């Protein structure tokens, strides 16, 4: 939701390892089941770097592994719709309010708790202000088939009647 | 030389339905005459024990000899019945059999009335022959099980 920006950004981890802070780059690195929440926005990953670009504006890079990809979850302004996504690396740009999911990215929209439209791609970019998504294939080197953007639209209740 | 008298083969069905025949089909009439009296012909397939389904019941009359001045001298009569047996639900029992009889009949326009009667007698005999072969097959069907 748009209101998430005004909420405080909370970063937690399982505490097994200490967080390290690099003052010169103004970044904090947290490791071990890290969870970042800001309002309805929630990102989980193994390792997260959080930067404060400007007072009150943060950006983060969450790294997951093939076995345990980083996940992203946020409620949308529309009633009762939630976006869930996962990828090897999730870059959250607080300033531009844009999320980039890179590497075996998958995204799903849940309507009233039921899984609806789905998408897979090499890179998925979610621009919140514009409410737009961009799906891109892998770079020519990578295996094109696996990462070619693929969207699946499930018929919506009200849209199943074709316009007469 | 190996010949024995033919043994009576019973038609083991009481109720048979003739389906696929055109209304007033002469072939269906011939089958009614040849089926043993014990076998009753029912209209609805549901009430029957076995169905005789006609795939093709056709009479061909073609001119095979005529004079130089367009007078017909010979007709060829061909009666053909393609049929298969089916259970009351309509599933086929065995494949489609084709029986055909072909006879030539001399003709002259002057004797049109008499030739009409002769043709009818010839066709009745040809259809009776086909009907007898169908009844033999019906009896054989009984032996080999429904």
């Amino acid at each position, binding site marked *: 939701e748009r209101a998430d920006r005004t909420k405080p950004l909370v970063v937690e981890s399982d505490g097994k390892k200490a967080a390290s802070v690099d003052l010169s780059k103004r970044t904090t690195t947290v490791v071990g089941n890290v969870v970042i929440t800001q309002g309805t926005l929630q990102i989980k990953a193994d390792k997260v770097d959080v930067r404060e670009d400007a007072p009150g504006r943060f950006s983060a890079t969450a790294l997951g592994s093939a076995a345990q990809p980083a996940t992203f979850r946020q409620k949308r302004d529309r009633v009762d719709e939630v976006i869930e996504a996962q990828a090897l690396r999730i870059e959250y740009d607080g300033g531009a309010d844009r999320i980039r999911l890179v590497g075996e990215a998958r995204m799903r929209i849940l309507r009233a708790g039921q899984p609806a439209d789905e*998408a897979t*791609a090499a890179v998925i970019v979610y621009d919140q202000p514009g409410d*737009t*998504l*961009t*799906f*891109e*294939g892998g770079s020519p080197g990578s295996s094109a088939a696996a990462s070619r*953007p*693929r*969207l*699946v*639209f499930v*018929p*919506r209740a009200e*849209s199943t009647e*074709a316009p007469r | *030389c*190996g*010949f*024995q*008298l*033919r043994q*009576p083969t019973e038609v083991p069905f009481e109720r048979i339905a003739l389906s696929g025949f055109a209304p*007033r089909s002469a072939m269906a009439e011939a089958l009614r005459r040849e089926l043993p009296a014990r076998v009753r012909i029912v209209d609805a397939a549901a009430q029957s024990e076995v169905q005789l389904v006609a795939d093709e019941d*056709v009479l061909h*009359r*073609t001119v*095979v*000899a*005529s*004079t*130089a*001045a*367009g*007078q*017909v*001298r*010979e007709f060829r009569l061909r009666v*053909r019945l393609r049929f298969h047996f089916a259970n009351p639900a309509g599933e086929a029992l065995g494949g489609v059999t*084709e*029986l055909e009889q*072909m*006879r*030539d009949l*001399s*003709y*002259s*326009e*002057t*004797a*049109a*009335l*008499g*030739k009409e*009667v*002769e043709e009818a*007698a*010839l066709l009745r005999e040809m259809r009776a022959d086909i009907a007898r*072969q169908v009844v033999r097959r019906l009896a054989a069907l009984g032996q080999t099980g429904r």
Partner: protein
Amino acid sequence: MRIDTADTITLEADRIETQLDDLSVARGSVDLRQGSLRLTTDLLEFSTRQRRAWARAPVRIEQQGNLLEGRSASVQIDSREGQIDAARYRIARTGGGGAARQLSFVGTERLAAEQASYTSCRADDPDTADWVLKADKLSLDFEHNDGRAEGASLRFLGVPILALPVLSFPATGERKSGWLPPTIYPFDSRNGFELETPYYFNLAPDHDLTLTPGLLTRRGLSLTGEYRYLWTQDEGRLKAHWLPNDRTTGRSRGGADIDLQGERASGLHYQLDLQHASDDNYWKDFSRVLPSLTPRLLAQDVRATQPLQSWLGVPLQAYARVLGWRTLQVLEAPILPPYQRLPQLGLMGQGETLGGLNWSTQMEVNHFLLRNRASGDTRTDGERAHLLGALWWPQDLAWGWFTPRMAINAASYRTEQAMSDGRTRAHRAIPTLSLDAGLRFERATALFGRALQQTLEPRLHYVRTPWRNQDALPNFDSSVNDFNEVSIYQDNGFSGVDFVTDVHQVTLGAGSRWFDPVGGGELLRLGLAQRYLFKDQRITPERLGASGLSAETGVAASRFSDVLLFGSSTVVPQWRFDVNLQYNTDRQRTTRSILAARWNPGDFKTLSATYRFARELSEQVELGWQWPIYQREAPRADGSACGGTLYGVGRINFSRRDARVTEGLAGLEYDAGCWIGRVVAERVSTGTSEATTRLMVQLELIGLSRLGPSPLKVLKDNIPGYRMLRDDGAASTTSP
């Protein structure tokens, strides 16, 4: 048509930008699928709310085998309705396809195109296909298998052969009014070039009208009308042909053919078959119009039958009939017209009493009348009332049968002119006693190494009919039976009521059949029969003429009848032989014989030869063939097995008595995969020195319709074993 809207839509591409809840834009080898629909392009917009896709780049749409390619397209996914521009299309169902400036479709059921071309030939560019139909507007409805082209023009091998404002093809199912493809006879020795363009009026679902204006270069304009109706209990077809002014004869000419029948709940069935021709030469010039098998004898037959529930509870049937004849005379070969029945009224019944005694009876009254009789024709008109009765007691046990039979043939006559003995009234009653008995033997045997079942049925037929004087009686409806394996076991040597042969004879015969016990097909049938007469027969077949019995010759006829040998065999694979021989033992010569052989090695390959001899009646040799002459190239990859095969087809009927070809038919058939061309030349002798030759050209565009007259009917009727190209089973027609 159920569209599976429940199906999900999948969209793949190199890059996709989606405005959530609305438009997605996909770029780079885009592939959109839903159920059986698949759309591929390079630039696509897809609205999730409307579930509609717009292809902005060259697009390809596949649906259940149909293929559409175009510059751009838009498709409503759920209803499968869409448009496509600058399209090329191919329809799986008809194998046809072509190009169109703009094409809209609804699933795979309906398709409408503008500035379209349509052909069933496989060609990269439709314009270079063997045949192509171009139309301003083309609509194809596959649910009703109905096509309609407006502003249509048809090009065949580059030559424009047809242009019509509206062309409907193949008009099946829900019929639409419009022009039907025209028929062309490029050459007819009597009518010259003929062109007919039928127009079809779909008046209502249960009746329609086809009007066919025609042009005959040697005769002028003609009009043929055919009205058909199909009601719940009645159906009918009325056809009339009219030539207002025939330039060669200077008179108006015409023909009519009316076919009606129907029934009523009471069981009444009526049938009306009327044919009429305006003049005696009509059959030579317009043989296609009247479907009569006897071209020079046209029947005018109205009959009705009504079953009655009689007081004995035994079903009787009353019948009434009026039968007239229109005889077309030819000077050098006149026909002595048969009697007309004006009317025929009768009652008949058949039944079985207790104890298995069968009876049958027929009571009938006839008024016989001759129409436009020739000057020398001395036959008298008159009335006849007759009663036929029979009692028989069939005993059929599987191994044999035994059927004694008693019959009576009583008739009374009243003639307009005096009979040869001066009387105008006469009656006679002729009893007959007969016995039919036989045995049935069977055995398993083998022939040419095939296990077969063989039956052997010796049969005896004894007949005793006393002589009754019939010398002076007129011959209204009797004729001599052919001597074949059916008539040899019959009681009377004549068919009809007037005359009964006085016989005291016994016929001995035997028939044997070999058939395949599993498949049931009969492979070989042989039979032999001969009669022995206990006393001389006074009323012999030779004495019966059109006007009654000729004088007795007094010559002692032989006590042994002709020997009858008959057989037919399909024992030798691919071959079929038929033999029918009637041999006169006294004069040591055949009276009648039919020898036929047919070789049918494969589909569309058949050769047949038949020799027919009937002493003093006819002697004919008939050759028939259908054979592939030339094969252009190996069957094409697209599975049309006989792309480019030329077949020779034909039949020649030579009468040795007239030393002339009475009927000749030779043709070529070329199957080019997407079209079949037939050229058939037909020569029908219409006189000892006169004949009609006719050339028929037919072009059958597969997936469109037949263009031109159908020589098929001619070929199918006349060439034994002829198999239509493009038709798996032998197409058989039900003729009356």
